[in-house]
């Protein structure tokens, strides 16, 4: 048993992860410099990845691999990008998490993994029509706290 997920939570996550379809890579960006939550985030991600063989974790040091950080528009640590592997193609839906996705944010994180794996946005037809009409990029930053 890990430090973050107890037996009960582990069972619940394994149950919802049975709906995973495509493999998902959790790309975690960390730094050695002054990062209070990088270690905890890595540990949490290792525990989450251990709950399904559809998940993999890749840890990247943003200082050593600045090019990759730039490619994924990463400016902070810890940051997480969720990437799907659909028929051999790497899909980046532009979904990021900055900071440890624990507490309240944890269930949103787990649901994001499932949505990315299934490539199912779960939105209404009206919203989809609006999004299809977008001519300019829209970047959403959703601030949350763990408690």
């Amino acid at each position, binding site marked *: 048993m890990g430090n973050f997920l107890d037996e009960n939570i582990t069972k619940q996550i394994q149950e919802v992860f049975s709906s995973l379809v495509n493999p998902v890579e959790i790309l975690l960006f960390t730094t050695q410099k002054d990062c209070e939550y990088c270690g905890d985030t890595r540990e949490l991600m290792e525990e989450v990845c251990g709950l399904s063989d559809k998940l993999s974790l890749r840890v990247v040091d943003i200082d050593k691999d600045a090019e990759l950080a730039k490619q994924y528009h990463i400016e*902070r640590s810890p940051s997480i990008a969720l990437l799907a592997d659909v028929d051999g193609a790497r899909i980046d839906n532009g*979904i*990021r*998490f900055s900071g*440890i996705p624990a507490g309240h944010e944890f269930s949103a994180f787990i649901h994001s993994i499932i949505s990315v794996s299934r490539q199912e946005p779960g*939105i209404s037809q009206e919203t989809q029509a609006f999004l299809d009409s977008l001519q300019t*990029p829209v970047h959403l930053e*959703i601030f*949350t706290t*763990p408690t």
Partner: protein
Amino acid sequence: MALASPMVTSDAIEATEFPDLADKYHVSGVPHTVINLGEGNMIGAAPEEMLVAEIQKSLQK
């Protein structure tokens, strides 16, 4: 929404870990959704239709 459109990206930010960023957007309560670097804001839960309306508003600026 990010899943539904290549034009949309999202970042769920833990506010206490990045206080400078939270201050920049005057985040005092959570959840707080910032659209296009402050062009739009939604404080509190963001139901789909309301978020769409706020995005539309911020794109018209």
